[in-house]
């Protein structure tokens, strides 16, 4: 049925349809389509999605059927020559780089950048994921953005983003990758600042762009070094030049560069990835990016654009294999970011920010997997990318649905118990939470488990203790993930029903156009993981990507990805359940968080305006809270649970919730855990880990003090210097003739004796000088 359409046509159509959607919306949106402006976008994206699926199916048919590992399959379609400078670079023999193919007669290499599209399994995977989720998000946005004055603008930007993103994963050249890398960045900038009249949104857009530019600084340097080292910037081989990731290199004809230069290239690439994928230390933009409309957060800042860094590193994996130190850095950045973001997410009250930090944390997970630089690691990372896209988009859209009902209030302290008001959102959000927490058998469980297994394998294979630490960090993050996810879930949907006054008459389930995408995404979030994992389809499919095939070849693997480890699976499940249990203890029924925190810290440090008692005071439990914090009280912590009133704790439950049956058991476990955890917290009350987490470890403030402030200062000093010194010098020189003239005029006063004297002096001078020079 697809034979009629060639791969080439499909490859061109996939980005072209969203682009034409964007252009049509921009032309006809403001005056003609108005409230119907979503049609070009929705239709274009849907068609693009269909094309992607057709492409994937077609490509599946073209893969070698014997299933042997280590066979990379790719096809490249060249559209036009973007830049071509012939014979631009003559690598000197002294460099002695085996990485550059010797051309005939050792002619200098051409600097040639083509606009070329490629298809391999990695690209096909990304294309399917991107177009599928963007179509669903576009449909959802029809409801969410309804009535917004920038309706057409929103859909135009959205389409433009999908064009850039599909191009980003399709192009076959580092320069073009950079082009669309920045392209998605600018779409993100436009969409974060979509409500530009809100100064916070405008500032967040700029911040996102600039932080990304810092990362791109590294990416650009990597690109230049790569040109110097490999003499090419394309992924594939062309007729004359061997590409960086081309077949000739995979065949062992040419080497990959390791050592200092290779490591530098990889680390600089990682810097670029850190910017786009919000990894430490460039993660600061993503939480602020939540100022954008929620569908944008779901599509760009959770599912697609932020995974571009992961895609790029996966694509460049052979370079990292050649530079193991760089891979090690990737793993540590990933694990560190995962843990850090997980810790920050624990204490945020903004539902979207919790999800944003969760995204940062999960991306860290993916980088951790990539940092293993093994086939199992990369496939696990990509698998997590794929499943995470579905359940995180689902969670964000769910949060959007809550915002929609709550009149754009997103502070979890101001609403609660919404499960009766928003039943569909509640159910789908629950599936998303379970998937994110990694509860069997939802998608997240499988992909998270694959990552943990990859780290576990690497720890065993190398015996290095550093990998064991990484494994521990990953497990810790799994616990945090389960905890903060369900903290948000319980705070939003359980407890006494509270609705802010902004909600007005909106506090009901979202319209059909919004909840249908939620249900579809929930189905994917539940099913994609187990279906792909049980058949091992994903790992097999991905192995045909040239970059990864080479790894399979090198590893001598016969196509088997990391085996399923029962011990890892059981541990991670136990950890996740423990996280859920703790969340249930603190937030289900009575919200014990405040009481508990007060119990530990006695609020000596807490800013009253930030005090969570704001929201707790609205609950009937406030009296108990006040009781605990009575002045002069010196409670001891360990050994018993603070303010645990078993008889009262279920009194405020409104009917059987989703977790009503196992709740009692969970709470019992949670209570025990709480007792254990409070001891170090109590000991650390003076450094106040809660405050550290709540303030996001002060990274923004540190940047302000160390970078932004000094640069601004330098700018002002430069300007002052420019006016006083540089321009002053010029004016001084310019004024010199006038002053000289004035000085000379003084000598012309008509004193004949002075003239005579000067004449004599001059003559003497002439004579002396002539003798001196021997003229």
């Amino acid at each position, binding site marked *: 049925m697809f034979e009629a359409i060639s791969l080439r046509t499909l490859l061109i159509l996939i980005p072209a349809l969203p682009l034409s959607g964007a252009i049509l919306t921009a032309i006809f949106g403001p005056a003609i389509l108005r409230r119907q402006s979503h049609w070009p976008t929705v239709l274009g994206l849907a068609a693009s999605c269909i094309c992607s699926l057709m492409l994937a199916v077609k490509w599946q048919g073209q893969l070698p059927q014997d299933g042997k590992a280590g066979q990379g399959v790719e096809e490249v379609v060249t559209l036009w020559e973007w830049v071509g*400078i012939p014979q631009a670079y003559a690598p000197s023999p002294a460099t002695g780089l085996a990485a550059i193919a010797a051309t005939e007669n050792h002619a200098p290499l051409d600097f040639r950048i083509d606009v070329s599209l490629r298809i391999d399994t990695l690209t096909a995977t990304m294309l399917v994921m991107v177009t599928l989720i963007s179509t669903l998000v576009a449909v959802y946005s029809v409801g969410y953005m309804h009535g917004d004055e920038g309706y057409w603008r929103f859909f135009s930007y959205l389409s433009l983003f999908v064009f850039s993103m599909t191009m980003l994963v399709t192009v076959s050249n580092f320069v073009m990758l950079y082009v669309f890398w920045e392209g998605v960045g600018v779409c993100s900038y436009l969409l974060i600042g979509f409500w530009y009249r809100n100064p916070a949104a405008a500032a967040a857009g700029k911040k996102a762009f600039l932080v990304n530019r810092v990362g791109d600084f590294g990416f650009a340097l990597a690109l230049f070094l790569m040109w110097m080292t490999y003499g090419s910037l394309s992924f594939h081989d062309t007729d004359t030049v061997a590409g960086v990731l081309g077949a000739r290199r995979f065949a062992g004809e040419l080497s990959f560069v390791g050592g200092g230069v290779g490591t530098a290239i990889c680390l600089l690439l990682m810097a670029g990835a850190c910017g786009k994928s919000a990894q430490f230390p460039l993660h600061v933009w993503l939480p602020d990016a939540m100022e954008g409309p929620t569908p944008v957060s779901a599509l760009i800042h959770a599912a697609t654009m932020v995974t571009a860094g992961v895609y790029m590193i996966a694509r460049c994996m052979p370079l990292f294999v050649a530079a193991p130190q760089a891979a090690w850095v990737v793993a540590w950045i990933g694990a560190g970011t995962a843990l850090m973001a997980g810790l920050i997410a624990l204490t945020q009250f903004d539902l979207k920010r919790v999800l944003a930090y969760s995204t940062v944390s999960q991306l860290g997970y993916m980088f951790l997997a990539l940092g293993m630089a093994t086939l199992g690691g990369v496939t696990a990372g990509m698998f997590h990318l794929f499943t995470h896209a579905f359940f995180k988009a689902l969670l964000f859209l769910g949060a959007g649905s809550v915002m929609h009902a709550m009149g754009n209030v997103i502070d979890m302290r101001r609403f609660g118990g919404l499960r009766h008001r928003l039943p569909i959102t509640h159910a789908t959000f629950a599936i998303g939470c379970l998937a994110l927490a990694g509860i069997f058998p939802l998608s997240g469980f499988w992909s998270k488990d694959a990552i943990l297994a990859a780290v576990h394998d690497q720890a065993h294979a190398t015996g290095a203790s550093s990998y064991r630490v990484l494994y521990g960090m990953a497990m810790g993050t799994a616990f945090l993930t389960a905890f903060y996810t369900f903290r948000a879930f319980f705070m939003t949907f359980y407890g006494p029903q509270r609705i802010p006054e902004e909600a007005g008459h909106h506090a009901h389930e979202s319209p059909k156009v919004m909840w249908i995408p939620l249900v579809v995404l929930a189905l994917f979030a539940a099913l994609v993981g187990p279906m792909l994992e049980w058949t091992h389809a994903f790992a097999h499919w991905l192995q045909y990507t040239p970059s990864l095939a080479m790894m399979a070849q090198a590893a001598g693997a016969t196509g088997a990805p990391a085996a399923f480890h029962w011990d890892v699976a059981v541990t991670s499940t136990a950890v996740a359940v423990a996280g859920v249990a703790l969340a249930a203890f603190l937030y289900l029924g009575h919200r014990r968080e405040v009481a508990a925190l007060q119990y530990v810290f006695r609020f000596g440090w807490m800013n009253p305006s930030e005090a969570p008692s704001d929201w707790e005071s609205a609950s009937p439990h406030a009296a108990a809270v006040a009781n605990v914090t009575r002045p002069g009280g010196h409670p001891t912590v360990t050994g018993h649970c603070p303010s645990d009133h078993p008889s009262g704790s279920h009194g405020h439950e409104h009917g059987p919730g989703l977790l009503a049956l196992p709740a009692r058991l969970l709470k019992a476990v949670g209570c025990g855990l709480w007792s254990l955890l409070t001891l170090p917290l109590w000991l650390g009350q003076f450094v106040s880990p809660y405050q550290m987490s709540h303030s996001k470890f002060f990274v923004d403030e540190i940047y302000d003090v160390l970078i932004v402030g000094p640069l601004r200062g330098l700018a002002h000093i430069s300007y002052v210097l420019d006016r006083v010194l540089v321009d002053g010098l010029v004016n001084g020189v310019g004024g010199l003739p006038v002053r000289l003239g004035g000085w000379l005029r003084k000598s012309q006063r008509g004193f004949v004796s002075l003239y005579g004297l000067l004449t004599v002096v001059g003559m003497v001078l002439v004579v002396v000088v002539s003798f001196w020079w021997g003229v």
Partner: protein
Amino acid sequence: MARLLLQTLALPFLAALLMPIVARLGDRAVRAWTLLVTLVTLTLTVSLCRGYLQESPGTDGFAVSDVAWLSSHATEMPLVADGATGPGTAIWDIRFHVGLDGLGLWLFALAPVLMLTSILVSWEAIQDRPAWFYGMLLLLQGGCLGVFAARDLILFYVFFEFTLLPLFFLIGIWGSEQREYAATKFFLYTLAGSLFTFLGLLAIVLWHYQQVGVLTFSIPALTAGLTEHPIAPFGLQLAIFLALFAGFAIKVPLFPLHTWLPLAHVQAPTAGSIFLAGVLLKIGTYGFLRFSVPMLPDATAACAPALLWLSVIGILYGALVALAQTDIKRLIAYSSVSHLGFCMLGLFALNRIGSSGSVLQMVNHGISTGALFALVGMLYERYHTREISAWGGLARRLPVLSCFMFLFTFSSIGLPLLNGFAGELLVLVGMFQRAWQGQLAEPFTQLKWIAVLSVVGVVLGAWYMLWLVQRVFFGPLREPHGIHGVPVRDLNWREIAALVPLAVLAFWIGIYPQLFLRPIQPAVDALTHEAQGRWEAVDRPPLADRQAFLLRRSR
């Protein structure tokens, strides 16, 4: 084609001469006449460009006309003792010699495009003696066209100096508050520099005369002659290089010779700013590439590191100072300093990628900065202020203007698929290639520092431009009172027409830069070939050795 070029060159001057007659018909006629002439010039230029792309001539030049203007023939008395000249050889030879090559082609074509924008922008803004104003603009355009088409040294210099006069009057008469000071400073500063340049050029001619025996002013002949007989004592070559540098570097402007630029820009009328940024500054870089680099290759190779330092300091310094500005026009003026730093950086990277990218970047800067000045002019016309803090949230009040502003901001900060990116990429790749060639794994040398620092400029560039956009166009609406208290209107069709050609070019160059690079690359290659060879022949010794080398050369 030669006739076409002559017509294009003559048209603005003729139109300016006829201006007193047209002026009798009233101001509307003056505007219409200027617009008509410019449209014709533009059409002619477009057909010249098309012809160039179709014929793709080599480095010999295109549409060349060569008429003796003032030349005599030696019959008996050869002026050189060894008798290198024979009878019949022209020994005194100033010619009207014009033509286009890949270096000048796009800069030549840029002038009428920016002229069109300038006219449409000034349409209502200039009510004071419009006949004179448009006459000056036409003369300015004619001068700019002549500079890039001249193939004779004297002709070049005449046009080079001639561009100063109309701009002097444009700033001095139609400028803002400090217009006299700005005009005088601009005029004296650039004139002082170009007098040195003139001396340098004369020295080149005389050296050629001494060696070859022909007193020619033809640029191709001089280039060829000096390639064969390089100026011998290195000290002399260096001195001539510095003399040329004085004029060209002020024109660019290279740090620290830039202080006239922000002043001139802020005080100039919009059209003057557009021309100044778009075309006049490029004469400096063009001069370096046309004269200094091919004719003085040894000195170029020796001075290149110093010039690269000045360029990169200019990039960072311009960006930082732009960050501190409160006046929108001055901010963009300082951004010009930064951008021209990129042009100089690519130029003196002295390899194919860098130097071609530099020429492309000259065109790009003309387009994006020209458009930004036009937009600032439109804002000024509406609010009569240039203070950034006076505005806020204008995206709501002026959506179309904001849309163009975003586009050219993105173009200016080098966003991919717009023109700025291709040029910046090539410049930086060229610089990296220069810095890392043959010594990949070695520790940082000065060139590597220059290369890395220049990329920092890209980050800073995004900062000040996006911050500007954020302050002026985002946030809650804040605006000074419009003129006569009437609420301001968004762009009208005339203003949109002024910007659309530039927007089209921005996209065109961004999406298909190869079309524009194809003529540039061979021409630039021919010009930089010698100097590149000189630099690489030394094989880049460390700094101490380099100084020893300089000393050795100078003896």
